[in-house]
């Protein structure tokens, strides 16, 4: 993975000192909360329900053992013994004290980590395919581009006070594991007929109050122009994005209001004006970064055989292990969705275990996913059993990847001041209702996503089944959506009908699942059946 040089380190260190000063000035009363808030948000520090919350960046979802151990240390020393993996591949700590924040950032800086631009109206962490560098279906590892773009967008002065947050997603595969079509800018690395690298550029996706699937605005952008092109996109939005209504300020609204063709035209026009200015990083810089992402030293000639005589191990392999491009290797997803647990939460001890496993078995490489799980991208098949045993002992071996109990849930009203409802108890009830492994396997792939409010941090619009928490006259109420997808076939879920109580929505989902089982054809997932038959059969089953 990328290693800071002295420039990267100096920049992060300077940021720590700058924030230390800003915190001191705030505590001394030299700044109001209104003045301080954007500054602390630029360092990932929210004021949440119970305390300050710190969102640490895990750039494009890649982290090593040393960094993980520091996260575990922060959890123990400054927080309450655990962290939370988010739907943008970052980690959150829920019980932070403002006075500790500068010291936490200093400790993070020592292991090349930070919380820069993880919240506020900033260019946020770039999310990327968690199988980068391991999957056979990518044209290249997208992460060097993610790192290049990360540097380009860090403290970009022109875009320091954007209308709203800005999220970039990156993949290098036609199989979109990074949900790029639901990002403000989605980038797919591709090659043209001559074999040159470039990007398919999509703009204007996003969930929340007004969800949209991103529009294609450029089918092939030469890779070396990505910085200037992003600059053009950001500038058009910075200048023309709405600033009068916080719910209408994302770039997706501008793209929608102008229409994608006009938006693309304005971007092209701006890009023509700035291309000659030399803002793009040269190929040499890309190559310097890419040198950190060369394939690990895989052993050659390893066997692909696996002893699957242990049925519980076999079940885990069946669900959680994916094919690796290198013979004898595999990609292992560790589910952080134990039945009855809290989706995405990991104790400090579990973080240490993940560090050990990454270091010992996966070339010191771990990948949080936007589904709140983590991936060991490069494991020898021969090591899978030993890994599984260690996971099993730590309660991390749930064999439910992409099954109904692999639920994405935002922290919800238990933690978040924006929420209308709690999400975690609902996730727990649902997981318990469908706990039977055989039943889950029979249902098959079903991506269930829960958001406690319209801000959609649980990505409910992208769920095959989505749940949205709403406030109904002071009580928690839940709306049910069907038919969303964050993959390359991106679609937005549709509300099925009137909302439910917490127990009511569990029952409703069960009725929908049973209906699916009754009418599905061979090989159809829930999503496929829904797309084939529409809402009516499900409405009938749910509401009678």
């Amino acid at each position: 993975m990328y290693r800071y040089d002295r420039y990267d380190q100096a920049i992060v260190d300077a940021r720590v000192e700058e924030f230390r000063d800003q915190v001191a000035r705030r505590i001394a009363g030299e700044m109001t909360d209104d003045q301080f808030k954007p500054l602390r948000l630029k360092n990932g520090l929210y004021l949440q329900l119970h305390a300050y919350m710190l969102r640490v960046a895990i750039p494009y979802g890649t982290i090593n053992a040393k960094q993980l151990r520091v996260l575990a240390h922060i959890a123990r020393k400054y927080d309450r013994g655990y962290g939370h993996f988010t739907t943008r591949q970052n980690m959150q700590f829920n019980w932070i004290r403002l006075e500790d924040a500068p010291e936490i950032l200093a400790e993070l800086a020592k292991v090349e980590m930070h919380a820069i631009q993880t919240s506020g109206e900033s260019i946020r962490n770039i999310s990327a395919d968690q199988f980068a560098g391991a999957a056979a279906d990518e044209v290249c590892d997208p992460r060097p581009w993610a790192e290049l773009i990360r540097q380009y967008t860090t403290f970009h002065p022109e875009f320091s006070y954007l209308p709203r947050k800005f999220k970039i997603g990156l993949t290098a595969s036609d199989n979109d594991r990074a949900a790029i079509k639901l990002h403000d800018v989605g980038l797919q690395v591709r090659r043209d007929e001559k074999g040159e690298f470039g990007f398919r550029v999509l703009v204007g996706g996003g969930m929340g109050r007004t969800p949209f699937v991103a529009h294609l605005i450029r089918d092939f952008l030469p890779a070396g122009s990505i910085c200037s092109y992003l600059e053009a996109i950001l500038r058009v939005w910075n200048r023309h994005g709405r600033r009068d209504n916080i719910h209408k300020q994302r770039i997706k609204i501008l793209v929608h209001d102008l229409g994608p063709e006009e938006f693309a035209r304005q971007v092209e026009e701006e890009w023509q004006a700035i291309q000659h200015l030399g803002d793009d990083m040269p190929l040499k810089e890309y190559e310097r970064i890419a040198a950190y992402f060369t394939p690990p030293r895989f052993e050659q000639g390893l066997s692909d055989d696996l002893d699957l005589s242990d049925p519980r191990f076999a079940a885990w392999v069946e669900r959680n292990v994916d094919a690796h491009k290198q013979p004898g290797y595999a990609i292992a997803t560790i589910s952080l969705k134990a039945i009855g647990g809290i989706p995405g939460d990991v104790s400090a001890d579990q973080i240490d275990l993940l560090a050990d496993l990454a270091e010992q078995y996966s070339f010191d490489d771990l990948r949080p996913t936007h589904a709140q799980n983590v991936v060991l991208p490069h494991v020898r098949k021969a090591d899978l059993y030993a890994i599984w045993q260690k996971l099993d002992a730590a309660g991390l071996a749930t064999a439910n990847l992409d099954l109904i109990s692999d639920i994405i849930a935002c922290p919800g009203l238990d933690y978040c001041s924006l929420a209308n409802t709690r999400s975690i108890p609902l996730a727990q009830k649902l997981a318990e209702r469908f706990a039977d492994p055989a039943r889950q396997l029979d249902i098959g792939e079903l991506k269930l996503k829960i958001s406690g409010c319209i801000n959609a941090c649980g990505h409910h619009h992208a769920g095959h089944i989505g749940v949205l928490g709403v406030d109904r006259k002071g009580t928690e109420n839940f709306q049910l959506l069907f038919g969303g997808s964050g993959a390359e076939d991106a679609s937005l879920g549709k509300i099925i009908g009137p909302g439910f109580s917490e127990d009511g929505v569990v029952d409703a989902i069960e009725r929908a699942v049973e209906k699916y089982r009754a009418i599905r054809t061979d090989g159809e997932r829930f999503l496929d059946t829904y797309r084939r038959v529409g809402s009516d059969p499900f409405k009938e089953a749910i509401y009678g």
Partner: protein
Amino acid sequence: MKLLTGNHLVNGYVIWWTGEGWSRHVEQAVDVADKGEQIAQVEAAACRVNNPYVIDAEASANGPVPAHIKERIRATGPTVRPDLALKPADASAGSYVI
């Protein structure tokens, strides 16, 4: 009744106005009637509270009970981690949340 609440600037704790100062315990919160905004401004300017605001609550035998579930959760702690609640040893402390 009306309660004034906010977070402690430095440590982030949820705090409630007691009439004389700030407490972590909602049982000690007083009815601020229509003085909430005024007190909030003074206290925020003195950096004794961050982001203060007024909420509705009902009186009860055990002290004020916030009207909205969000505020009840703020008063007691995350419902899914009773071990992290303000009073983890008191099993009944959060019984009024839901």
